[in-house]
C-alpha cells in the first residue's frame, strides 16, 4: 500500500535553524493492516504521517502509494491521490467551527463531481454508523470530545479512501473513549481499510488489533515494525 525509501524532510535547509523531522526513513505498510508509528513528542511522527498522506513533499527519497511514486507529482495530481487514497484524522481534529456536523462531514465531497443529495446521503449513512444522528445539525464546537472525534472519523471516511491516517487520535480522549475508538478502527480494518496511526499512547500501540508498530526517535525509524522497538 505505502512504501517509503530513504525519505528525508528538511525544513530551513542550509540555515542555522535547519531541522530534519524525518531523516532517511524506509518502511512498508501493507493493505488492510493497522500500522502504528510510536515515539515521543517531536520525534517526527506527524511529519512522517504528512509525507505518507501527500500533505507534504519529501526533501529526498521516494514515496510509493499503491505503486505510484508521489514524491515528485505535480500539486494537482498529488491532491487527487490524497483525495482518493487517504482520509485524515488530525491530532487537533481541525473541524470547521460555525458549521454543522453534517456540513463538516460533507466538506471533502464539495469539490467532487457528486450531487448534493448523493453527498448528503453518504454523510447521513456515516452519521448513522458513528452514532451521531442526534447531533447532525449541531455546530461542531458544541459537541463533546468523543463526538468531535467521531465527526473527524466520518469526515475522513466520506471520500471512501483506501487508507486512514490518524495523528494522536486518543490525545483528547479518556480510556473508555480510546477503547471505543480502537473498536471503530478494528471495524474499518475489517472493511479492508489500511490504518496508519501516529501515537505515543500505549492503549493504542499495545492494542491487539495493531499489526505493526514502528518506533521513531529524532526523525528516524528504529525498527522494521515487525517487533517492539522499545517503549515511547
Amino acid at each position, binding site marked *: 500500500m505505502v512504501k517509503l525509501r530513504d525519505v528525508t524532510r528538511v525544513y530551513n535547509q542550509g540555515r542555522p535553524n535547519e531541522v530534519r523531522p524525518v531523516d532517511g526513513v524506509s518502511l512498508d505498510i501493507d493493505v488492510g493492516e493497522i500500522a502504528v508509528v510510536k515515539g515521543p513528542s517531536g520525534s517526527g511522527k506527524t511529519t512522517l504521517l504528512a509525507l505518507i498522506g501527500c500533505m507534504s513533499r519529501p526533501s529526498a527519497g521516494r514515496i510509493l502509494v499503491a505503486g505510484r511514486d508521489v514524491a515528485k507529482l505535480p500539486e494537482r495530481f498529488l491532491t*487527487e491521490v490524497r483525495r482518493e487514497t487517504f482520509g485524515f484524522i488530525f491530532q487537533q481534529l481541525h473541524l470547521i467551527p460555525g*458549521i454543522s456536523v453534517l456540513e463538516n462531514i460533507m466538506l471533502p465531497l464539495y469539490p*467532487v463531481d457528486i450531487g448534493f443529495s448523493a453527498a448528503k446521503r453518504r454523510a447521513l449513512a456515516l452519521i448513522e454508523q458513528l452514532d451521531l444522528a442526534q447531533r447532525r445539525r449541531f455546530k461542531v464546537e458544541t459537541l463533546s470530545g468523543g463526538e468531535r472525534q467521531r465527526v473527524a472519523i466520518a469526515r475522513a471516511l466520506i471520500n471512501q479512501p483506501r487508507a486512514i491516517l490518524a495523528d494522536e487520535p486518543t490525545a483528547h480522549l479518556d480510556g473508555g473513549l480510546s477503547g471505543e475508538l480502537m473498536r471503530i478502527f478494528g471495524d474499518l480494518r475489517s472493511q479492508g481499510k489500511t490504518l496508519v496511526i501516529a501515537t505515543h499512547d500505549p492503549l493504542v500501540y499495545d492494542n491487539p488489533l495493531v499489526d505493526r508498530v514502528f518506533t521513531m526517535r529524532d526523525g528516524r525509524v528504529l525498527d522494521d515494525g515487525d517487533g517492539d522497538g522499545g517503549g515511547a
Partner: protein
Amino acid sequence: MASGRLGKHLKILEFALSSMLRRRMKNAGLVIVFGAVVFLLSSIVFLTSALRAEALAVLEGAPQLLVQRAMAGRHALIPLRYGETIARLPGVGAVTPRYWGYYYDIYTGANYTLLGIGDARLQAPGATALRLVEGAFIAPRQRGVCVIGAGVARIRGARIGGIVSLRDARGWMQEYEVIGLFESPSRLLTNDLILLAEADLKALFGMPDDGATDLMIEVYNPREVANISRKILERLPDARPIGHAEILRTYETLFNWRGGLLLAMFLGAVAAFMILAWDKATGLSADERREIGILKAIGWETADILALKFWEGAALALVAFLAGVTAGYAHVFYFGAELLAPILKGWSVLFPAIDLEPRIEPYTLTVLFLFTIVPYIVATIVPSWQAAITDPDRVMRSV
C-alpha cells in the same frame, strides 16, 4: 460533465456563503467600508454625468453660431449693424439679435437668466425645447408680464397671476405678472430662466436701442461654421463668434473638471480602500489560513480554494457595490447631492438649486464596477492562492 461542474460550483458557492455568515462581523465591516467608497465614487459620477446631460439638453436646438462682442476681453453689447454686415456673408441665413442677461436675486441668493422675447417665437438657445405647462407665452406687444420655469416658480413660490419683482438698472423695483410656466428637457433651464417681453428686458437692463446681448446666426451648412467665423473676424475684429461645438467643449471641460476635482478630493477615501484591500491581500487571518490548510488536506484542489475565495469576494463586493451605487443614486437624485454641496458652491452660485434628472450611464457604471470590484476580488484571491499552493501540512502547522 457540465452539470457536474455546475453542481460542484453550487456546493462551493453554498460553502462560501456559509463561511461569510460565520465571519459576519468582519464581513459586515468590509461591506460598510467598501459600500462607503462606492457610495462616494458613484455620487460623483452620477452628479457629473447628470450635470453634463443637463448642459447638453440646454444646447439642443441651439444655433450653429453665436456672435458676441468683446471689449478689452469683456463681453459687451453688440451693435445691431454688426448683424447687417454678417447677413451679407455667403452661407449665412437669418441673423437674429438676442436680448438677455444674468440677474442676481438677493432674496434667493441665485443668478437667474432673463431672456427678452421679441415676438411669439422664442429665441433662446434651447428655448425651442421649452414646453408650456400652464398659462400662456408672451404675446406680441404685451408688457409687464413674464413666463417662468416651473423650477423658478417652485423656488420663488410664484404661480400664475403672481408677481415677480426685479430691480432695474436705475434701482427701481419693477413688477411682472406671471402668465405662464414652462418645462424643458433641462432642469437647468426650468430652474434658471425667466422670459420677459423684449422691451421690458431692455428697459430693465437699461440697454440701448441699437445694441443686443448677442446675435444668433443661421448657417446653412454646419461644416462652414469655422469658415464663416473667420470671415466675421476679418470684417469685425472685436466680434467673438462662438460655434456650437465650442460651447459643447466648454460644458464638457467644465463638468469633467468638476468631476475630476471631486474625484481628487475623494482620492483619500479611495486610497484608504486600497490600503484595506492591500492589507487583505498581504495577510490572511490565522483562522482563514488554517481553514485553507484543512480544505487542502481533505482533498480540495488549489483551484477549488480559489473558486471558494472568488465567490466569497464576489458576493461581498457585489452586495457592497449595489448598496453603494443605490445609496449614491438616492443621494444625488433624491437628496440633491447634499454631501457634495460644499464642493459645488461655485456652481450653486451660478445656478439656483435644481433637482437633477435621474439617469444612469452604463459606461460610467461599468468603469466604477471595474475599478472597485475587480481590485477587491484580486486582493481577496491572491493571499488565498499563496496559502493554497503551500503544502497543507505547513499551512496548518504555521498557524
